[in-house]
């Protein structure tokens, strides 16, 4: 067709049809997004509205009393804090180190490809299997007993693959031309990594670390056999102490203790959720800040 200005245009019917398809497409994707987000918002809203009344200073700072039906949840909060910190101390250096090796030093051969496949598979192993592995290796064989140490190491093994994959991806996203230029200016490979590659990849690496730790903080199965105490109304004093932890405590008071006030169950869920969401928000802030600051 040729319009009044002599410009070729598509037949009208076709344009209308394409427009309609486009509108349907958008509608479908909007619906899909809404369907994904709505349950999350509902869960969060339900837990916070039911649990917030339980949140008080004593609830956060006192030990449980009366068979956990009263008092606070401080031992569980402290336990989860130490577990997460211990996991970070082990998993971050190992995970980031392995990612640097795989991305910057290892050549692409059958061996490194096998390592990558193994890492991806490790990330898919059910967490209860990690729990059993931790029981066998750390608690029994190495004799750490049910302890913060055994729990942290078990959670670290579970977290390391997540950190390796995300950190390696972040490192690979740094343009190779930066490396070549840096080397051409007389930098060693390590200087190049330290001064150029790592700073560029840091936001991505941090995001991966936090997302991995967040998952570790919320896991129940791996700590079930390795660290968690059913009821231990005192704070851990060494890394060889068993400890309460938020996810396991939530499991216990939700299923194992008769006559448990609902308020306390939901209050515990609020604390755990806030812990995890807080880490998530930190990760998001780091990422968006870094994106705004990016210099290429």
């Amino acid at each position: 067709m040729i319009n009044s200005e002599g410009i070729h245009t598509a037949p009208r019917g076709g344009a209308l049809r394409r427009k309609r398809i486009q509108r349907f497409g958008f509608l479908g994707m909007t619906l899909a997004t809404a369907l994904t987000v709505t349950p999350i918002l509902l869960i969060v809203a339900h837990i916070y509205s039911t649990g917030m009344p339980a949140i008080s200073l004593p609830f956060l700072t006192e030990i449980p009393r009366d068979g956990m039906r009263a008092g606070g949840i401080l031992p569980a909060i402290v336990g989860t804090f130490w577990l997460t910190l211990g996991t970070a101390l082990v998993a971050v250096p190992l995970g980031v180190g392995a990612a640097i090796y795989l991305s910057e030093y290892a050549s692409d051969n059958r061996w490194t490809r096998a390592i990558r496949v193994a890492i991806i598979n490790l990330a898919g192993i059910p967490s209860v299997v990690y729990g059993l592995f931790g029981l066998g290796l750390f608690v029994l064989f190495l004799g750490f007993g049910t302890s913060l140490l055994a729990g942290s190491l078990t959670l670290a093994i579970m977290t390391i693959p997540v950190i390796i994959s995300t950190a390696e991806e972040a490192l690979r996203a740094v343009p190779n031309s930066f490396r070549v230029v840096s080397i051409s200016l007389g930098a060693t490979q390590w200087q190049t990594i330290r001064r150029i590659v790592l700073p560029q990849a840091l936001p991505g690496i941090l995001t991966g670390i936090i997302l991995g730790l967040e998952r570790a903080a919320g896991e129940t199965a791996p700590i079930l056999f390795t660290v968690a105490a059913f009821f231990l109304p005192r704070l851990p004093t060494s890394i060889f102490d068993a400890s309460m932890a938020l996810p396991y405590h939530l499991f216990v008071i939700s299923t194992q203790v008769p006559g448990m006030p609902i308020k306390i169950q939901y209050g515990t869920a609020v604390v755990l959720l806030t812990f995890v969401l807080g880490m998530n928000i930190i990760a998001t802030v780091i990422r968006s800040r870094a994106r705004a600051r990016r210099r290429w």
Partner: protein
Amino acid sequence: MVVPGQGADGLFKPEQVKLRIEHLSVAYSDGTESLRDINLSIPEKATTVLFGPAGGGKSTLLRTLNRLNDLADVVDCQGHVWLDDVDILSPKVDVIELRRRVGMVFARPVVLPLTIRENLTYGLELSGEQNRSRLDDAVERSLHNAALWEEVHDRLDEPASSLSGGQQQRLCLARSLALEPDIILLDEPTSGLDPISTGKVETSLSHLKQDYTIVLVPHSIQQAARTADFAAFFLGGELIEYAVGRQIFTNPRDQRTEDYVEGRFG
């Protein structure tokens, strides 16, 4: 008399030779661009142009001269490259030190994700220079030499990526100069630049050759003719002809050089 493939004996005095390439052969694992038995002497304080169609081996030769090819997938590298009587291909050579003496400017301007000043001091700081005033001197001197000082002297602490493409490429040149190298290698440094920026780069190069040995892969035959004191024509990994610039572009000896210079093939 210049014999093809036999270097440029007689083009300049032996004591002017900065780089002497002897029987250099390079092959990549994927069988792409390679070099076969190159013999070539490059004089100090002059611009030597390596030109010819793509895939002829010019970039490979440049990347061999500061051992950047170490990063590439080279399966075979034979021969010698003498820089002031040191064979830089020898495994005993300090590659880091070599790369400080032989600077490189790439086709695409790649500024490091740092400020303008940090880009310029990067190499010096890595080599251990910490003296603030010496670093500042190097920044100013190299920016002057790359004809960039006027444009950036009041914004040295801004991200280098805020510069225009032409400015970024001159920053890359200045970054090499900051290390006070003996030799500057340039691989089609103006291929992405507008004519005005290209002119600025060429002008700085024409000043720089009074103090530095410049090896340039030009992005066009016109640029080759404008800038060359000496010119080497590469075709299919071989050195076809090496002569004084004026001569090779007006009166080439080899038929293949003539065909290329007159535009019968690209």
